């Protein structure tokens, strides 16, 4: 298990998670770090910037239909973000962990690096990319870039063990730290 090298009272954790299975596993581990020492959890949720181009090459629709679609997608994404924030916040509150969050639009890796450099964090926690057979958006954190550019240690949580017929389960014994 990762132990921060300094002697400050609280460990400031930056958690990058957006509600996917891998990210949920990262949330659990980040919250469970409380067992070792007090935590402050800052949650980063990135809305990938490919959504800006999701109107694609539509040219047939009237402006009103395109505007309605834009509003609908925005509200969908907002709902999903609120659900993620709500879930992590509730879990943090139950463990009495101070919780804060940031929502950013852009490329996930760049957003994480930007926030990690701007804030005073001791550890960054992220989930693993989903297996190819697992459904989800094609937008993930570039681990190599993060390893090179992050100013603090990085904790990558392995993707939960799954099988075809059961929801994902997560084992806390398989935590891996990259510094």
């Amino acid at each position, binding site marked *: 298990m990762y132990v921060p090298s300094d002697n400050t009272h609280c460990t400031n954790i930056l958690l990058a998670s957006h509600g996917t299975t891998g990210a949920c596993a990262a949330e659990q581990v980040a919250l469970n770090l409380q067992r070792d020492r007090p935590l402050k959890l800052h949650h980063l949720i990135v809305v990938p910037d490919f959504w800006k181009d999701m*109107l*694609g*090459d*539509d*040219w047939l629709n*009237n402006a009103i239909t395109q505007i309605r679609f834009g509003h609908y*997608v925005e509200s969908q994404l907002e709902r999903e973000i609120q659900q993620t924030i709500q879930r992590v916040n509730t879990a943090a509150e139950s463990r009495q962990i101070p919780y804060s969050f940031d929502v950013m639009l852009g490329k996930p890796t760049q957003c994480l690096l930007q926030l990690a450099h701007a804030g005073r964090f001791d550890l960054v926690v992220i989930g693993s990319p989903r297996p190819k057979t697992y*459904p989800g958006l094609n937008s993930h954190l570039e681990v190599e870039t993060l390893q090179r550019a992050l100013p603090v240690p990085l904790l990558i949580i392995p993707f939960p063990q799954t099988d075809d017929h059961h929801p994902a389960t997560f084992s806390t014994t398989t935590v891996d730290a990259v510094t």
Partner: protein
Amino acid sequence: MVYTQKHPALLIMGILMVALGLLVQFGMMTEVIKYLKIDKSINEMTTLTYIFGSIAIIVGLFHLFGKHREGHLDYYLSTVAGATFILFIAMVIKWFIDPYVAVLSKSFGPIMGDKYLHEVFGLNYVVLGILAGIIIVNVFGIPKWAENGVRLSRLGLKTGVILLGTLYSLAELQQLGGLSVIMIGFFVLGSAGLVLWMGARRNIPNSMGGVLAAGIGVCGVSATVAAAPVVQAKSVEIAYTIGTILLWGVVCMFLFPMIGKMFDLGPVQFGAWAGTGILNSAQVAGAALAYQPDGIETLKVAEIFNITRVLILPIIVLWLAVWYVKREENAPGVNLIRVMFEKFPIFVLGFILMFALSSTGVFSPAAHDHGKYFDNNLPVEKLLKEEEVNLIQSELNTVQRELHKVTLGRLLENKKIMSLDDDDQIRGLVNSGVLSKPVNEILKKAHNSVFRTAPKIDMFRKWITWLFAFGLVGLGMQITLASIKQAGGQPLIIGGTVGTLKAVLSLVVVLLFVRETI
């Protein structure tokens, strides 16, 4: 918010355009023009560059040195930079890159029958323009100063379709309309139904099935955009569907013209096939122009199919809304009138208006000399030569239809086309691809000797070609790899299966039942 950016790009593009016009006008590019065989474009190369170059210089100076304040003027003038950017790329591709690719391709010799590499792969200004757009957005990104204007490409395409209305006769519209209603009706309903059926079998959520059925069944991204809010699609479902359709559309834009050439499809056949089989409406226009870049017949057919699709869209969205409400307890109510009103494509009214105006003869007045069918004093060089007559005679046996044989007989006897009906038959024969390339060239020459397009209609044709080139380069700039990379999951499996089935079956139907003459 002030949209105009103080950037020299627009001014530079304007200066480059005018400089190009001057170089061409004063004969400093004669060698290049000769090498690329673009003599036909000289007139365009001077007029278009002067007109749009001057506008770009004036607005560019204002962008750079003017004071900009928030308001309508600022917003509309800010779009000039992006629009000029697209136009400049379209000009460079249409006048230089496309001819250079043709010269290069011809240097390799024919690769499939008598067809060259660029003909087989449909590498012309349309495809190259879309490719250029895709490369620019994905490699360099759209410059900030051009972002606002790039959106105008949609307006370019819609204006192109509206102007296209001037080129149809009532008989064409009736027959193409009837054919498109039958084919689109069958394949749209069939593929949408098949997606819903497969979706139910593969246990995908109703919202995903609904949005996918619209996208795969009707007109691709446009239908997805229209249907997603109605069937309450989740964000990941929207991303999957749009990614799948974009991927499929780009692949089809290259594949369809190649396959069309392999089967020697005529403009009507190819237009009908592309208009039915290609999922995404933008790529229908792209493939049609890629198939026949120097004429507009294929585009005319394909766009009728596109218009039929978009007219069916509100009905399909309504059907999906009702289908979804029946299956989901928490589905919101559907306002039928609002759906029909919002989804109705207003630009189709413009198309109908232009068609109606054209039918009154306003663009082709009665005094206009339609042709020289009855003119027996045609100069000798306009008549068929002896060796041309012999060449046509040598291939008479390959012609199956009696009417074509009789028409060819009259042509050989008089050495010129004698009536409008004969001209229609000859064009149909050329389009059918039954005869060899040299004979088709002779027949085209015979048509050009007697047929004369009204000047206004001719002008519309040129404008339409440019508007589509402009629109498609701009649309290429809106196809990002990040969006295409979202293709996956069940939508890719279901969409791939139904899309392939639709493309293959529509090709079979076209080959069996669609004839070349309208």
